[in-house]
């Protein structure tokens, strides 16, 4: 494997806590990238703020570590300015669904060719364990000392409703599947989104009695099921388990945003245009 080519080896070890799943996501991502035929020099990886935001520092591409929540908006500018670039966003559940939630749904709506990998550890880790829009109800958080009363998003449904053309969900207990999902997302022409369950044994696990990283990975496995199997389940059982895999894939490269904008350029240059 040429995976080391895609890591900034001199920046490792990373700052993430022992047992943090974010490293497994990076691990799976660089393996997916190795298998893709994408050009490393024509790839930009963009992140926001929080634990996930640090991912870009370890990846050997043009990398942009932006402001909190805005990675997708920066990425939209990069992609539009130069549609020949592969643009990948790495964001977290706080970064991507709270402060950056607006950009997520609008990028999905435009169907712009970005690959968004959302590290979902259900908590604000870097700031010490406050609840995020992905923290399930009744979980504990430093800002929900009596239990969380907020409902969490079903992110896949949210992005689907917004118009995303590739939606997948994976989890760090199954890095082989994560890699396959990232590879498929990288190849997709249009907005692709991979919600990636990650474990946070420190800021989430300690408050919620989740055990160590190994225990948390076991819980992940218990609470998830392959999408094909999930589809066979009763409505009641569906509520209890998260489906993993490619949840939606629409192949329509013509509906991609930069492709549609090219048509606008042609239109503006026709005789008799404005």
């Amino acid at each position, binding site marked *: 494997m040429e995976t080391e080519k895609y890591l900034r080896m001199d920046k490792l070890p990373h700052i993430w806590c022992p047992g943090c799943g974010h490293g497994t996501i990076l691990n799976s991502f660089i393996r997916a990238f190795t298998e893709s035929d994408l050009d490393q020099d024509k790839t930009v990886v963009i992140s926001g703020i929080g634990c996930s935001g640090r991912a*870009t520092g370890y990846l050997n591409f043009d*990398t942009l570590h932006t402001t909190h929540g805005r990675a997708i908006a920066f990425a939209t500018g990069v992609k539009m300015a130069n549609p020949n670039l592969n643009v990948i966003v790495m964001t977290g559940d706080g970064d991507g669904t709270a402060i950056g939630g607006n950009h997520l749904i609008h990028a999905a709506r435009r169907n712009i060719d970005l690959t968004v990998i959302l590290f979902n550890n259900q908590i604000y880790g870097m700031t010490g364990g406050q609840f995020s829009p992905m923290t399930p109800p009744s979980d504990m958080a430093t800002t929900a000392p009596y239990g969380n009363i907020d409902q969490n998003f079903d992110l896949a449904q949210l992005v689907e409703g917004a118009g995303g053309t590739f939606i997948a969900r994976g989890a760090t207990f199954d890095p082989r599947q994560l890699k396959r999902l990232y590879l498929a997302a990288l190849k997709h022409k249009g907005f692709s989104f991979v919600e990636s369950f990650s474990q946070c044994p420190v800021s989430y696990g300690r408050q919620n009695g989740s055990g160590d990283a190994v225990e948390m990975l076991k819980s992940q496995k218990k609470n998830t099921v392959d999408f094909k199997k999930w589809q066979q389940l009763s409505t009641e059982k569906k509520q209890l388990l998260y489906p993993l895999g490619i949840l939606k894939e629409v192949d329509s490269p013509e509906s991609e945003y930069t492709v549609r904008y090219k048509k606008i350029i042609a239109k503006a240059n026709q005789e008799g245009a404005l």
Partner: protein
Amino acid sequence: MKTKIFKPEKRAVLLQGDQAVVEGALAAGVEFFAGYPITPASEIAEGFARELPKIGGKFLQMEDEIAGMAAVVGASLAGKKSITATSGPGFALKQENLGFATMVEAPLVVVNVQRVGPSTGLPTSPSQGDLMQTRWGRNGDQEIIALAPASVAESYELTIKAVNLSEKFRQPVVLLLDEVIGHLREKIYLNDSEEIEIINRKRPTADQDPKSYLPYQQTDDLIPPMADYGSGFKYHTSGLFHDQSGFPDGKKETAKLMQDRLHNKLHNNLEQIIFYQKDIRNDDRVAVLSYGSTARTAISAVNTGRKDNLKAGWFKLQTVWPFAEREVAKLAAQVETIIVPELNQGQLIREVERAVAGQARVLGINSYAGELIKPEAIRDLMEEVL
């Protein structure tokens, strides 16, 4: 390749200030706009939506002001000359990413067509209330360049200058119009394209080895060469204080070195950044110092006053930030009184008083609820002090 709608031959056109910004930006090589509709700046977005695709450029209407600012920074890093436009409330929302642009040294232009604030305020009335927001609106210390046109012609010329300064210094530049200048229609002459000086950012040389490229190199001129994303350099860009390699190291010395470089790259070159016009005669005893639409009133008051032998002159700032401290100190040594009319409760006057340092009397005339200052108000004060 088809070019701009207003053909580059020198010719007279009747334009609004907002439209002149679009023309100036296109003349300076801008290929990217991202923004969000807001009064009284929407005509700028509309102009770019119409014109940019004609030159293969890109227009993006984003989901909010913050996203508009972010997209422009992204486009700049991808190598395009980029611009956004807004008004006061939107400018407030853009501040965090404007600070980011300063930190990563992304050249770009932010146009703020000012209206009366705070909050929604008076959306269709002029103001100069964002002067200090422009200077201090972001967290932390940092320099900013801000130019303020006083006419449609200046909206065109100073937009070109704004783009050039941003490219030259790897520095975001703010263009401060106000509602009157944005919506005013005047006849202006567009330049021949060969007459326009165009500055492009310094990029790494062809023989630069990507492995030894330092995106934030401490060069002699303090302006590091900037590589476009996708050109093989694989470098890191971060809003954290970073060393020459672009990576944060958390050291206070690194932060100090970078803060100083960001400051000095502008302050070592103030003569290239500070533009002004003046008409001060040797025996003038009072000077009216102004900028933007207020300068029109000031010049008019001085010109009519002179017909009645008032010993008065005018000084118009085209660059409001960095403040023309030395020039204003010099002016204070020449005259007894400096009058500072402003469409706010007194913002520039603080800088003037600081620069004057007691050498001359400084008096303000302020209108801050959407009314323009009348020439008579300035005339009255001139007569009173003379």
